[in-house]
């Protein structure tokens, strides 16, 4: 690896653009955090690296676009994966017209449902973690907080995160977007499951702090 370019500094990892057998690839390194106890730090970095690699691969195998994992090194908390050329939805989203926004939200809903139907919980669904590829596919990245689970609670938590992320970043259109995401979700999971998950989302919301209609 003679070529390495720092692409970005995320909250917990450094992203480099590298050459991997003549192809462009992303190297994601979970860097040690000085503020954490060293044992805690190692535990968090190692477990998230392993989980992310597993979940990325599992998601890809069921047809959810994610970068292909090329290489994992748990000693350095490093994953080398496919470089997805495209733009993050977070920056792109508001510049799109509302019809395209709707289509994208429906698609996101379908992808989330596909993950959930296969027992994959993303754990950090935000528009920062979605890339619109030139082909029109939406790629999901950043599975470090994810898990394998089938229960309604885990699905609800996942969608609740999506809702919260929309509310803090795209607050003007959050409600419509979330409704389209749910619509897309029910296309895959069916109306009954979707209703159950939505009920759970509302229950999770009501567990939150300072929600008036709690009781």
């Amino acid at each position, binding site marked *: 690896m003679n070529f390495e370019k720092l692409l970005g500094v995320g909250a917990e990892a450094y992203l480099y653009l590298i050459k991997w057998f003549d192809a462009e690839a992303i190297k994601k390194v979970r860097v040690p955090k000085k*503020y954490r106890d060293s044992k805690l730090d190692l535990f968090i970095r190692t477990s998230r690296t392993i989980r992310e690699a597993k979940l990325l691969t599992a998601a890809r195998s069921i047809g959810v676009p994610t970068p292909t994992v090329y290489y994992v090194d748990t000693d350095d908390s490093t994953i080398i994966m496919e470089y997805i050329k495209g733009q993050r939805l977070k920056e792109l989203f508001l510049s799109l017209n509302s019809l395209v926004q709707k289509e994208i939200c429906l698609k996101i809903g379908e992808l989330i449902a596909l993950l959930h139907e296969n027992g994959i919980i993303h754990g950090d669904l935000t528009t*920062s973690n979605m890339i619109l590829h030139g082909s029109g596919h939406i790629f999901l990245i950043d599975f470090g907080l994810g898990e394998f689970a089938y229960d309604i609670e885990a699905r609800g938590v996942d969608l609740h995160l999506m809702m919260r992320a929309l509310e803090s970043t795209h607050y003007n259109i959050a409600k419509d977007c979330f409704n389209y995401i749910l619509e897309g979700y029910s296309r895959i999971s069916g109306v009954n499951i979707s209703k159950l998950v939505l009920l759970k989302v509302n229950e999770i919301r009501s*567990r939150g*702090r300072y929600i008036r209609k709690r009781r």
Partner: protein
Amino acid sequence: MRSQKCIVLGIESTAHTFGCGIASNDGRILANENSVYIPKEGGIHPREASRHHSTVAYKVVASALRKAKIKKEDINAIAFSQGPGLGPCLRSGATIARAIALILKKPYIPVNHCVAHIEIGRLISKCYDPLVIYVSGGNTIISAFDAGRYRIFGETLDIAYGNCIDTFSRNLNFPYPKPNELHPLDHISTEGGNFIELPYIVKGQDISYSGLLTAALKKIQEGFFWRDVAYSFYVTASAMLIEVAERALAHTGKREVLLTGGNARSRLLQSMLQLVCEERKVKFYVVPSEYAGDNGAMIAWTGVLAYKHGIITPVEKSTIKPKWRLDEVDIPWRL
């Protein structure tokens, strides 16, 4: 917008502190008098705390007026913390504030307690547009200003950081933390310890503390060395908060960080955030101890900002809001 000189008297009473502050529109704090209810045992009992507030109110307000060296005619408006907080405590504070407003025939300004913690931090620490880490016994919120409101980029899903820390400390029979002394847990964390794995719960932008508290107390019961448990508990609870703070920092791209609220006094939180800010090359501000915990000055100062933008409420419509979220409040004084 009113631009003339104005002086606002603020009343704070959301939880254990009854405070009276006086602030003027040039950003001076003329008085900041506070009386804290300290329970004999256990946590804050809302009824007992509200009794404390009613008892000390006269003394605190009188002493604030004396310290500010102003006549009561000089006051332009009365601000009070309308929420969020403990119902009985809010009610006794609001009653006292209403009485003062009616006697002086002055307008009455509702202030959100969380907004006040942020505004006093910005004023005293002289930062402009920070990512705010607001940690106290009642709230744990990561927030940043965007499009007219303080948006929430992360918060606790159950109990607050301070609540979690305090309940654990009480179970180890640590004394009630004094504002100007190092917290017992800070002593332990500076000395270090053997790390024991405890639940580390981060859900996207949010964190959850109740499971960590239960697990840590269980470890004590199971006979693990209390010092190791205390160390692990404190660094785990704090690392969770710092992680979501760092995520919010990366997400919002803010260039300043402000630590405010009662637990801004935590040496561990301060040192952890310092490290994060150095690494990300952003400026780090901590609210001074005097303005970290609940205080009257922050209500008065936020009252000044609100008054300049005509935010007043008729007494009949001034019911307290114990569950008033930070992100429900419009902030017209910021662009």
